């Protein structure tokens, strides 16, 4: 019998709710020598971790459920929430099975958290993972290959086994397949958003932060089949892209509220790592060079990446709107998030130049009050309809 979307999403919800990461603990315990490597948003080369016999585990903060007690003692009120809930996860031993932590180069908060981790959890290997802001193969590429090589060595040490080229190639294959399925889910939702509600797609993608890639790909396939087969009521919602939520995640209720207020989310930047490389990474030749080339020439755009061409600035959002046939953009950013909030005015200017309507609000991962957001999104949905049907 085929699995229903409800069953798949129930599994995803259970993974999402489990702040003890039982799945990852069990995965590690099942075979001696396995390692788990935690990473913070938004991008790390998961292929290398996989090739080292590791499980890449996305650490995306504590969400609504986690009561942050100790973590607050490490951060001033004007710093976003994700680092404090991540510290809370650490000091409450919820991450005690994690062998290494990676802190991607996204902002100064995560950057400094990498050093805090070294001090607070000295037995865990932790690494600030730098990526180039120069996209020439002989400049940024050379730097990045060397960074990837250092990471490869660290992972080999952690797992006690060599990370071979063949293993990396095989991992690239698995992640190519996974990314293709992720893209398919996004495309499916953009075509028939009533058949793939955003909260479901969100939970599916969150599952990809925890599950082994093979298992996640299976899940995506099952979901696509089940969602296509199920009839669901189609509403007269407006179609929107949500942007700015690439790091600290919005509460699930916020995503639900946007949809309930009359907006179908047809594209978003939650968990960009799932769709980072925008087409297949080559499996021919040197696999590390291929990962580097994919980063330089074929990866998603976001605030933390420099855009060398002023004419191109912000067009990634316009493209997302066109690709998903969206009618408007919702800027949803974590409070105090420098990268998202500094990028916002530039993106808004570009949207305005393309006559794309937008609204903006801020959230925290534990925001409880959804009423204002529902009202704002509802008014936005109505106004979009008014504009499009004058």
């Amino acid at each position: 019998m085929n699995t229903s979307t409800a069953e798949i999403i129930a599994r995803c919800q259970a993974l999402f709710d489990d702040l003890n990461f039982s799945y990852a603990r069990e995965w590690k315990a099942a075979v001696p020598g396995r390692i788990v490597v935690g990473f913070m948003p938004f991008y790390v080369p998961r292929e290398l971790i996989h090739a080292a016999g590791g499980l890449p585990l996305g650490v995306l903060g504590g969400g609504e459920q986690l009561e942050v007690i100790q973590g607050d003692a490490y951060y001033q009120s004007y710093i976003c929430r994700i680092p404090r809930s991540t510290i809370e996860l650490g000091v409450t031993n919820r991450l005690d099975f994690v062998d290494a932590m990676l802190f991607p180069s996204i902002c100064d908060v995560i950057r400094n958290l990498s050093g805090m981790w070294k001090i607070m959890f000295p037995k865990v290997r932790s690494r600030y993972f730098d990526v180039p802001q120069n996209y020439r193969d002989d400049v940024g590429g050379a730097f990045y290959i060397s960074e990837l090589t250092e990471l490869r060595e660290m992972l080999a040490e952690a797992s006690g086994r060599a990370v071979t080229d063949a293993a990396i190639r095989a991992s690239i294959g698995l992640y190519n397949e996974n990314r293709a399925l992720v893209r398919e889910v996004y495309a499916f939702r953009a075509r028939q958003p009533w058949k793939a509600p955003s909260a479901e797609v969100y939970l599916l993608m969150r599952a990809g932060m925890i599950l082994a890639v093979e298992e996640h790909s299976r899940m995506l396939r099952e979901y696509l089949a089940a969602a296509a087969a199920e009839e669901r009521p189609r509403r007269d919602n407006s179609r929107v892209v949500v942007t700015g939520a690439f790091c600290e995640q919005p509460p699930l209720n916020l995503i639900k509220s946007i949809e309930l207020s009359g907006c179908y989310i047809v594209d978003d930047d939650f968990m960009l790592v799932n769709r980072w490389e925008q087409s297949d990474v080559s499996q021919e030749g040197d696999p590390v060079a291929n990962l580097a080339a994919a980063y330089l020439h074929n990866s998603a755009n976001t605030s933390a990446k420099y855009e060398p061409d002023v004419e191109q600035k912000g067009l990634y959002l316009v493209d997302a709107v066109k690709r998903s046939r969206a009618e408007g953009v919702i800027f949803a950013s974590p409070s105090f998030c420098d990268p998202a909030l500094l990028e916002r005015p530039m993106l808004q200017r570009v949207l305005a130049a393309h006559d794309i309507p937008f609204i903006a609000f801020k959230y925290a991962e534990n925001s409880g009050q959804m009423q204002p957001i529902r009202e704002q999104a509802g008014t936005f949905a109505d106004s979009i309809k008014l504009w499009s049907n004058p």
Partner: protein
Amino acid sequence: MTVTQAAEVVKDSSMLKQKEMISGNYRKLETAAADGRKVAATFVPGNLNELIMCFDMLNNLPEINAIQNGLRKKTGGYIMEAEKRGHSEDVCTYVKADLGMIAKGNIGPDGQKLPNPDLLLLSYTGCFTFMKWFELLRDHYRCETAMLHVPYQGDGKISANMIAYVVRQLKEEVIPKLERISGVKFDIDRLRENLARSARAEEDFVWVLESAKKKPSPIDAYFGGVYYIGPIFTAFRGTEDATEYYRLLRAEIAERMERGQGPVTPTGDMPSERYRLVVEGPPNWTSFRDFWKMFYEEGAVVVASTYTKVGGLYDQGFRHDPAKPLESLAEYCLGCYTNRNLPSRIDLIEKYMEDYQADGILINSIKSCNSFSAGQLLVLREIERRTGKPGAFIESDLVDPRYFSPANIKNRLESYFQMVDQRRAGGGSAPARAA
């Protein structure tokens, strides 16, 4: 960076010299178009002043404009202007002070119109906001941008890969762009000469900073320190003027030291040194003098500060080196204070606490600046734990007057000084050093 208001009170010859240098640079900026000079806008940490000079270009530093406007209490209005135009209340106020100033006609701190830059030379070391700041400026000016990405010292060290990457960017991207925009061909010997002058100034500068090891300290290494870093952190490193400035400054401080004098304050010499502090974090600029007063009135002298290391850690041995010009620029950019990881920052502060025989650590946590502030509560804990000395934590902002609360800060400082007294009366610090 330079406190011209205070300079009006204390007119040592080094100060007069610096004042002249700063206003001279603003004058040059104002007449740049008429003089046919090209202008590069660039940042303080990791600036490439010696290189820019090789192309006869002028140097305009948005952070310095924000500071100068902050001291003149103009930034509150500029920040509101930027917020009115859609910039979030949550982001760095230097950026908003700059964008607000531009929106209101780009009139510089000295009342004259600043030129549009010919090049945004983005070398962002130690802070991600710089990258966004220049993207925002580029959006406005639509001028050329040269990007120098300086990797972060995540593991607390500078690797050969990092240096090679920065040098490659200098050779492949930055220098060709500077050549094209200025029309001047790059001459590496000219760069070497500039670097040699920098190194000479750096020697004297370090001597000045280290004079604070003496009791009483002849300098205040934070409030006074922000004057001392002026030339070397900004548009003057590598010039004859800067070398001369540090020579003068050193001689003045040597004299104070000989006479057993304490630091100069806006109201004259500091009579007695009661507390020796290390300070982490930038100062507040909009109430700079009130803030300083809260210290000198209590006899508190800052003997070492981290803010005076954002534009280079010369006191830890780094010198610009004419023998390896591009590598040395790379090392400089990589080594600035906020480009060091948090454990290295803590180690450095601990070292300052010992080397300068400080009574405690004070953290001025700046709302604007995640680069400095994220993690400072752990810095405080670690320093207290390692040294057994008391610490204090206050919060303010750089140039947003809404976030400077004098009564709160004064209260906090007063109870802190009492704590230091009690600790002393109780027979010292009993440092419970970690193994």
